[in-house]
């Protein structure tokens, strides 16, 4: 579905990466590997059309991504390396807001099982601000499930998670791929997750 051709990005006349080729079809998991500062986040943001590439092009369903942007956005979720949940509100409020603003077509029981799976049910009435970093990270994954989109673009999803949670994420990935979804994620370590394509930056 997504095809990236000869993508290069320059910022402040400094080359960040050059001639990246990648293609993502349904049921694929692609991993981006590289050191800190090798441009993993930049590449993900370029695929999302947030950053403009200096050369190269990205296609979505055979058309140029730029001309088909809002259709693309209907199918994509992005998780940044920071938490997007609102720290002043409770976990419940956050879930509620996501559920409404993303016009999610997921029903309540599905959300509840997801909450249980992520072991967040004890924190529902806590403010997000007092949760630990790992827990807010898990909350981010809840957003992923609520948004219920086909393509997941994840920036460092596995950092600062314990082994149980990583196991859980692996399970979530496999479920998603089984449902013809596709995933791109970046990681600076070896995650031990089955991937179909590996790109080294």
């Amino acid at each position, binding site marked *: 579905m997504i095809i990236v051709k000869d993508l290069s990005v320059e*910022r402040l006349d400094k080359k960040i990466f050059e001639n990246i080729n990648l293609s993502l079809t349904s049921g694929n998991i692609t991993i981006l590997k590289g050191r800190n500062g090798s441009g993993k986040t930049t590449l993900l*943001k370029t695929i*999302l059309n*947030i*950053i*403009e590439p200096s050369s190269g092009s990205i296609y979505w369903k055979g058309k140029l991504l730029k001309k088909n942007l*809002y259709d693309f*956005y*209907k199918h*994509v*979720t*992005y998780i*940044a390396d*920071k*938490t*997007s*949940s*609102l*720290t*002043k*509100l409770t976990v419940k*409020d956050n879930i509620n*807001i996501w559920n*409404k*603003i*993303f*016009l999610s077509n997921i029903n309540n029981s599905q959300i509840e099982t997801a909450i249980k799976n992520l072991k967040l049910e004890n924190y529902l009435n806590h403010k997000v601000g007092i949760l630990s970093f790992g827990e807010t990270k898990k909350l981010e994954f809840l957003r992923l499930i609520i*948004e219920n989109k086909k393509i997941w673009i994840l920036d460092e999803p596995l950092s600062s998670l314990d082994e149980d949670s990583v196991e859980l994420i692996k399970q979530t990935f496999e479920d998603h791929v089984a449902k013809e979804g596709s995933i791109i994620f970046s990681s600076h370590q070896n995650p031990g997750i089955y991937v179909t394509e590996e790109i080294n930056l």
Partner: protein
Amino acid sequence: MKFLNKIIFFFYREYKLNLSGVQDILTNIIFFFVSIFIFIFSIGPDTDTISLIGVGILWTLLLLSSTLSLRKFYQEDFENGNLLIMHLNGFSYGLIAILKTISHFIFVQIPFLITIPIASILLNITNDKAFYLFASFSIGSLILSCLGSISSSMNLMNQRNFLLGSVIVMIFSVPVVIFSVGLINLEEDFNSLINILFGILLIIFVINPWASGFCLKLSLENN
């Protein structure tokens, strides 16, 4: 229909956010009132002088106190990545700017509007003048929200000198203040002055999504 729902839930989100941070808004209003007290005490007990310059004081203080909350305008949503997520969910940058401006107007400026009657009693402003002040500030505050949107989106990536944002708002609000205070002092030309304010509002309201949208895009791109 789906689109409308999204917008309604955007405001629901803003409402929740502002409710949880209601002490910030109240602090703004307390700042406003405390500065009124200070003005009254620094001028002295002469009520005639106070009522003569009261309108000017009120406008200045309204302007200053509403620029206090500029820092919150986009900064939080920008830093925790919510702007980006909203954009990825089909809100174009310009639309985000418009919605944020309206929500700033509702949740930050309208509390000030409500307090104007009380403030005008404190400053010995006559009833009809207070009415004109109310009318002028209800348009003027929407203009201030638009200006605030532009200047705070410009200064998203400016870590060094955030006061610049307030200066930008204040220099462009000079004509707004001129016409608003004119409106309060020249009661007979009410219609034409309201029209002028309305014209300024129209211009800034249509420039806002372009300018703020561009700056939001720019900041997200370089974050």
